[in-house]
């Protein structure tokens, strides 16, 4: 389009005035944000407010609940269920650590050594998602079954003695022990660790490794001083994506654990759906949220990743 100056006195050209355009363009980001904001409002903010109000209600299912600002529910819930909270943090923390230990070498291999196998390996990492979460967890029940080959091998090589001493297993059983729950959590959340790790490792310029080697860093030092620090954004997002959902998970504890391995998710689930004590369930949910927020904040502060956001 060529811009020609209109002679003085001539009527303004038809169509939208040129000034209107920038205003409309300025509004575009907000229009684009709208679906997301509506989604958050309806499916996050409103339920949150609703649950907050539930948590300070008293009453029963027959007589109905009403808001009485009964904050004691929080104290009672925490007092009664703190072992489950501790267990949740402990199991989720252990599973996250295991995911990191298992996932990092794999992500490293895919990013730097896989060559033309890279895409195939990435597909294999997410392949389990093609089956239902429930089916996969149930499969672990078979894998870890008493007297099964896995348990036999673990028992023969003395692994169960070690975990037994750590209080993770009892006797020659794996199923219904903390080890089974942690194994299930680790298995189910491993892809959430591998993918962000891979993404951040893959972004590292391989010439940085060469440069470090050229500057007298032996391979282990290259990893310690260059690769690992540069993969920190992936480590942080991977651990968060693993730890946060794992700490609220109840399926693994339900299917692979026993009454002695109940996590806070199991308590919330049974309070909501079996005991029908909605205030306690809501209060537990909020306490869990607070615990996760505190753990995550402390973690991000210590990990010091300014590049993450």
């Amino acid at each position, binding site marked *: 389009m060529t811009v020609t100056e209109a002679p003085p006195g001539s009527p303004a050209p038809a169509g939208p005035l040129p000034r209107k355009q920038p205003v409309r363009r300025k509004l575009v980001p907000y229009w684009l944000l709208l679906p997301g904001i509506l989604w958050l409002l309806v499916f996050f903010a409103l339920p949150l407010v609703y649950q907050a109000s539930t948590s300070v209600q008293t009453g029963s299912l027959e007589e109905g609940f009403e808001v009485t600002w009964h904050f004691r529910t929080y104290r009672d819930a925490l007092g009664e269920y703190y072992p489950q909270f501790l267990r949740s943090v402990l199991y989720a923390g252990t599973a996250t650590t295991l995911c990191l230990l298992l996932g990092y070498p794999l992500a490293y291999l895919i990013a730097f050594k896989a060559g033309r196998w890279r895409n195939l390996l990435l597909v294999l990492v997410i392949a389990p998602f093609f089956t239902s979460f429930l089916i996969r967890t149930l499969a672990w029940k078979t894998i870890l079954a008493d007297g099964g080959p896995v348990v036999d091998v673990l028992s023969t090589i003395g692994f169960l003695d070690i975990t037994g001493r750590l209080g993770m297993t009892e006797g020659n059983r794996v199923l219904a022990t903390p080890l089974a729950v942690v194994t299930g959590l680790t298995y189910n959340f491993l892809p959430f660790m591998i993918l962000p790790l891979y993404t951040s490792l893959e972004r590292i310029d391989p*010439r940085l490794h060469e440069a*470090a080697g050229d500057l007298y860093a032996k391979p282990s030092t290259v990893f310690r001083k260059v690769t690992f620090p540069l993969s920190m954004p992936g480590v942080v997002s991977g651990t968060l994506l693993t730890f946060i959902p794992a700490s609220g998970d109840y399926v693994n504890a339900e299917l692979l654990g026993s009454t002695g391995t109940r996590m806070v998710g199991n308590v919330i689930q049974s309070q909501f759906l079996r005991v029908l004590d909605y205030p306690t369930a809501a209060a537990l949910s909020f306490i869990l949220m607070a615990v996760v927020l505190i753990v995550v904040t402390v973690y991000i502060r210590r990990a010091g990743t300014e590049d993450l956001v």
Partner: protein
Amino acid sequence: MTDNTAGGDVRLTGISKTYGSFTAVHPLDLTVPEGSFFALLGASGCGKTTTLRMIAGLEDPTTGSVFLGGRDVTGLPPYKRPVNTVFQSYALFPHLTIQENVAFGLRRRGIKSVQKQVDEMLELVQLGDKAGHRPHRLSGGQQQRVAVARALINHPQVLLLDEPLGALDLKLRRQMQRELKRIQTEVGITFVHVTHDQEEAMTMADEVAVMNGGRVEQLGAPADLYENPRTTFVANFLGTSNLIEAEVAGAADGEVVVIAADAVLRLPTARCATLPRTGGKLLVGVRPEKISLAHADDAGGMAEGRNRCTGKIADSGFIGASTQFVVDSPVCPELEVYVQNVERDPRLVPGAEVVLHWNPEHTFGLDAAMDIDAGTETVEETA
């Protein structure tokens, strides 16, 4: 501190590199004298960077050995070699400050008090005020200087530079060339510089190895390479050459007489890359700036004893200090002539009949079996 400064000459013996069926570097022998500024010059894919990487230890040679100051380092990994590299993309550590980047090598060798040396080195590259910054906050030229400082602080026996100026714009590149040359003179370390820019190689290096197709075509001082190319590739790649196909008519008194179309040309026997045989073919070369151009009407008053041929101006380009003419001549369809714009002859326009003449001393001879166009299609890469 370990004594790393002893013996800085680099000796490559029979070194080669093949990737599957592709040979990146054919077996080559090369000696870079201690304390010299040495350039490996060639187009992309000629094997110059592979050669450099083999010296650094980043690439294992398929055959041959690398010696540094008399010590065989072929089997040593990069971190055990007393060489440092300035990478093409600088490869600065993005998570470390400039100061930490520069101190990296010293720290890896267990040197605790690095502050003084780092300050001095940043002073040398004039970046003292940027010590606490992260690399991404620096401009390309500043990053390049950090890369040099990070390598030089280790006092390597040899500093390897892999197209370190490739990413800079022309003006900054010229400035950095002078800067690098100054630093090299100041520290006296052997520099091996890889570049595809022939001007860069000639202005900076004491000695240049021109590489082509995984082989060293010719090795020598810049002026020697320019004046006495031994191959058509070198003649065409370094500057511009007019190459004329001619037949040897005879040789006497250290002079060869050749016939090209209607012209009889003479050149010193010493400047022939191959032994000229009477009746044989020879490629006769002359640089465009050595040729004088006269209008055909003035042909009478020309000094005797000069090589001369006739032609017609096909094209002319005025570029300020000089004018570049393309002359269609019976001896060569596109003879290039550069004429200084001291006194411009208004008759020298396209279509004008002209006489070209030059001192026979400025003529060189090449083996006619070689590809006359080798090295001409090389365009400057932007990578």
